[in-house]
């Protein structure tokens, strides 16, 4: 996985300073990746929902070191594609 764990603000800022090619201001650093596997059982529009989903909370830091949380949900097929993409990245990064 590409999660870099917890880092202090100054470390984050330093790493973002030398970020190549893409303007530093537009790229954020991934600080933490939290996930949850949930099951929606019922709702007002559907009594028998039975809908599994993966909820993700990303902690990202911008150029100044300010940290924000971004959350989103994925269906299981979406998550499986998400996971496949990460596997591909990991395989390529090994060769660089």
């Amino acid at each position: 996985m590409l999660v870099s764990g917890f880092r202090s603000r100054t470390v984050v800022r330093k790493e973002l300073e030398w970020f190549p090619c893409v303007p530093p201001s537009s790229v954020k650093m991934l600080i933490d990746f939290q996930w949850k596997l949930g099951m929606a059982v019922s709702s007002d529009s559907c009594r028998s929902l039975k809908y599994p989903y993966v909820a993700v909370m990303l902690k990202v830091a911008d150029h100044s070191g300010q940290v924000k949380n971004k959350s989103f949900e994925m269906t299981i097929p979406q998550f499986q594609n998400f996971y496949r993409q990460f596997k591909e990245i990991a395989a390529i990064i090994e060769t660089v």
Partner: protein
Amino acid sequence: MAGELESCKPLSGLLSGLAQDAFYGHPGITEELLRSQLYPDVPIEEFRPFQAKMRGILKSIASADMDFNQLEAFLTAQTKKQGGITSDQAAVISKFWKSHKTKIRESLMNQSRWDSGLRGLSWRVDGKSQSRHSAEIHTPVAIMELEIGKSGQINPELTSAANPPVFAEEDWP
């Protein structure tokens, strides 16, 4: 005009129209539109309770996410009820549910999803590079663009992570 309402030809069309309105949220599917398109010779006072009955049946089936056994039992019960449906109508409803079940269920799941979804994902891996401060930077980096948003809304997010992965828990001020 009970005969008109019992005719099965327009019933399939009616169920489609009701599904568009109840599950897919398409605007403008009014009672009058359905009547004039599918049952033009039926007065509105007769059409109204009929379409309400069909809508109720469709909603019950979708809400319970009925499998085919449950569906058969439910529709059989509806045919035996006073003011229920005919067995021909039951057959049309059964056929409709079998072909639309997946799509309707997906639509209901979408309605229950309130957090943002992942609309798109693209990525790039950068190799070694230089900067003003360092002659050579050895760490390859993966940059990902995540499109996160609710339906109809996209907020692209550019995120990066370094390799190798580190799970060191340092001080967090």
